[in-house]
């Protein structure tokens, strides 16, 4: 595929060789002929001695064209330009064995301790904006169910299906506000401590709004919990986070955080992180400044989820909504923010995705590196593994999420209607065959769309955010070749302006 940068430099991206190259305008001219289906050898053979007009270059003499014809042939003979530039079949399927293996290698069990909260944040996913999530029902996850799930997982984690060793396995406490059922957390931590693990070491994490932090901090510190506090910034930035009676929560949260930092400064430094939601009462600059100056921390910043908004709330939601890119673009100088937040910036993530797919120098692990070295040697595209449609994770490859009602999901961000199984005090009901079937049915409904998407190899779209319960789920991220070419152009144009970002990403961005 040919594309050009904002500076009008020409590049080509070869899907098969997985390489992006700058391209001299004369070579570009030959490639345009190639992709149009013209027999370039014949075209060259029939060339007379007249100069040939070349876009954005002027004219090229026959000897000049002869040079680029030889270069074109060299590249072509080495596997470049071998695929037609259209069509991106994705025919991968999941099988039950893969899902079981994925569960045996999962990294985290996240427990929705309670589905209710002591705050009433305006933008909560269980709140007024959303219709796709269930309303809180004051449910608590039973300790028996949580133990049954952990035992079930432990059998798999201790089995030879687990590929890891001496690896951390997190038990995560999530809500609602998980500290509203502290006895559950205390008992689960004690129970996990008594279990025998072969390949993993249990650690704990918790996501809290900080209201009950001071009350329970001694326990959290003693058990070395990784602590993620939801806080949007200063008092104004945080003003959507309120108690049920509308009183701002900031003073209470701030007091508790200060108490934690004062009593346990080392723990605070090593184990405490913040997540801030950006909205119309905050900006990246505000958030960065607040956490840096108050706590010497760099928070993660999340945007409000624009999926599943009720029609009547749409206008109000988008008044509240803000996006990180826009906020960054309004900053005069964001070099400090860029330095601190580099890996978490949207631009870094987009570029990283682009480099993974288009540079030819990024490999997920040593097996992919070895296989790629063999493949390029053998030049055998048939050895390519089949990709599954969309960018959906293999279920449970990252985590297992248990709702307060005992539903089993592959992630806490997915609507509960997509649960893959259930758990109660006695049993875990997971049917791997059925789960594979469900996923494959979803994939079948989308593979045609994915097959028409030029960006399908770099897709990060989760299938569960595509309204799979509707008859015709539609992915809004599908790119045709022109759109994909514009995407490539945007990425390479950014690199032309910020060339040092390239090596910084290649050196620093891992585990993406």
């Amino acid at each position: 595929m040919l594309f050009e940068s904002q500076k009008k430099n020409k590049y080509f991206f070869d899907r098969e060789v997985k390489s992006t190259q700058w391209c001299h305008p004369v070579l570009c001219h030959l490639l345009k002929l190639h992709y149009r289906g013209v027999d370039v050898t014949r075209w060259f053979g029939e060339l007379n001695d007249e100069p040939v007009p070349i876009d954005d270059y002027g004219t090229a003499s026959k000897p000049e064209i002869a040079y680029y014809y030889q270069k074109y042939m060299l590249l072509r003979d080495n596997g470049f330009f071998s695929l037609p530039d259209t069509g991106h079949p994705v025919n991968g399927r999941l099988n039950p064995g893969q899902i079981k293996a994925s569960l045996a290698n999962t990294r985290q069990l996240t427990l929705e301790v309670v589905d209710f909260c002591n705050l009433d944040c305006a933008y909560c996913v269980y709140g007024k904006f959303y219709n796709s999530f269930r309303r809180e029902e004051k449910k608590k996850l039973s300790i028996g169910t949580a133990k049954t799930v952990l035992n079930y997982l432990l059998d798999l984690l201790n089995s030879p299906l687990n590929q890891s060793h001496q690896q951390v396995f997190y038990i995560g406490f999530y809500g609602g506000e998980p500290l509203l059922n502290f006895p559950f957390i205390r008992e689960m931590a004690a129970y996990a401590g008594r279990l025998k693990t072969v390949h993993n070491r249990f650690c704990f994490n918790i996501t809290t709004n900080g209201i009950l932090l001071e009350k329970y901090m001694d326990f959290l510190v003693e058990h070395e919990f990784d602590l993620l506090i939801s806080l949007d910034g200063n008092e104004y930035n945080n003003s959507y986070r309120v108690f049920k009676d509308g009183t701002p929560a900031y003073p209470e949260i701030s007091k508790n955080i200060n108490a934690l930092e004062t009593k346990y400064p080392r723990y605070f430094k090593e184990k405490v992180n913040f997540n801030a939601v950006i909205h119309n009462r905050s900006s990246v600059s505000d958030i960065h400044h607040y956490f840096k100056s108050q706590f010497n921390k760099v928070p993660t910043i999340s945007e409000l989820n624009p999926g599943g908004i009720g029609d009547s709330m749409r206008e109000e939601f988008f008044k509240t909504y803000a996006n990180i890119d826009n906020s960054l673009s309004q900053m005069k100088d964001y070099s400090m923010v860029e330095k601190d937040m580099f890996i978490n910036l949207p631009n870094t993530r987009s570029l990283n995705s682009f480099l993974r797919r288009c540079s030819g120098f990024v490999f997920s692990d040593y097996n992919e590196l070895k296989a790629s070295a063999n493949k390029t040697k053998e030049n055998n595209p048939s050895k390519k593994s089949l990709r599954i449609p969309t960018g959906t994770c293999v279920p449970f490859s990252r985590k297992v999420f248990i709702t307060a009602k005992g539903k089993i999901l592959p992630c806490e961000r997915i609507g509960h209607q997509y649960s893959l199984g259930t758990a109660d005090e006695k049993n875990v009901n997971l049917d791997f065959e059925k789960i594979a079937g469900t996923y494959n049915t979803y994939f079948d409904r989308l593979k045609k769309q994915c097959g028409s998407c030029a960006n399908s190899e770099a897709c990060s779209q989760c299938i569960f955010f595509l309204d799979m319960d509707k008859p015709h789920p539609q992915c809004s991220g599908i790119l045709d070749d022109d759109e994909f070419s514009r995407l490539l152009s945007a990425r390479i144009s950014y690199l032309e302006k910020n060339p040092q970002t390239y090596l910084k990403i290649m050196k620093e961005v891992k585990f993406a």
Partner: protein
Amino acid sequence: MPEESRRFWFVLDNYVHVSVAGKSVMCYNPLNGMILEYPDCEPVSKLVKRLHRPKNLLAVSLTGKELSNPDISRFVREMRSSFMGDLIPASRTRGKPLQMMPYLNVQQDIEYIKKKSPGTVTVGEQMMKYLVEISIYINSACTLDCDRRLCGSAYRQFLCCTRGSGHRKELDILSIEHFLQQLPGTSLARVNILGGDIFKFSQWDRLITILNEPTLSVEKNFYTHYLNLLHQEKKLAQLKAGSFSLKIVVPFPIKKQQWEQSIDILTAYRPDPRFVFIIAGESDIAEAEELISQYSLDQYSLHPFFNGENREFFQDTVFFDKEDLREAKPTLTEILARQSINPFHFGALTVLSNGHIHANVNVSRLGNLEKDSIYDVVYKEMDRGISWRRTRKKIEPCRHCTFKGLCPPLSNYEYALGQNNPCNIWKTREIEI
């Protein structure tokens, strides 16, 4: 000659492998195998270092004046003519182009994990997926009277039977079974069974049953000396029934009568064995070729064996030079892979008949079959990386050589020869670019 004030963009192609050593430069085009060298040439080395600066990304501005330097002029001309780089008048572009320059990024890079310890990811993360090959020396018992040097050291150079030096006669079958039961989560592709004389293994039938387990659906190779085939018809039939592969080790000189008996047995019971000829000199090559021709052998391999006295033979046949590298034509991905792992050894483990487990039999053991879990063993090698990640980049004198990226990965011959660079290639100190 371009006007002095005219400006050009000089752009290096990003499929090119470039190595700088002091003031010397070597450029290699994997697409056509072309190697260009610029020894002790400061203008070229400076230009190449400029090209590799993070802000330049393989594209720099050159003036007509700079291009009038004879070294730069020659370099640019040769880069163009060998399709490694290009020159375009700046006036015909609207800005500086770039190339995504070759820089290996393995997302689960062990060195990065060890250095930065990024929270939840550890050296042991999904490590078992890397285990692809296991060689098990089930016993050391053998009644053959092979040359002591051959029996004692050939197995350190390539897969070959040995009586070894351990006291243990054979491995405990339960330990083997337990070992193999720990493998379902791996990417295991091959199990090699070796001895001693494998047919003397006391738990042979049990071993065959274990290896026939459907959960172990991988390639399985049995290695035996050709002289140990005699009177083993029943066991050969078992191997055939189990769809195992047989590798016949053949050192020279052969014993003609027994060789012919072996061939008869193989013809009757194993129509498709692979012959592993052990070559210590020119005469062995001639003898192997004669056998190959006379018996119409179509599956065989010749393995040079360093016996301590045939260095000259190795220099003639095994040592490599620039022409060999040009012919081998490694791809850029191969070159990048070799900087990070040793593709010959990565993912392979060997269990000796005394139970010791090695990532490479020339390197200290990682553990013991009876005492250690395979997880502990793999973790240790992933962490220390002495064999699986042993690359020329890390060893003397190769790390100083501009050709280290093109050379084949370190093999066991380097250990046998006591020389890391079995080559005839000019070397110089390297400065990383």
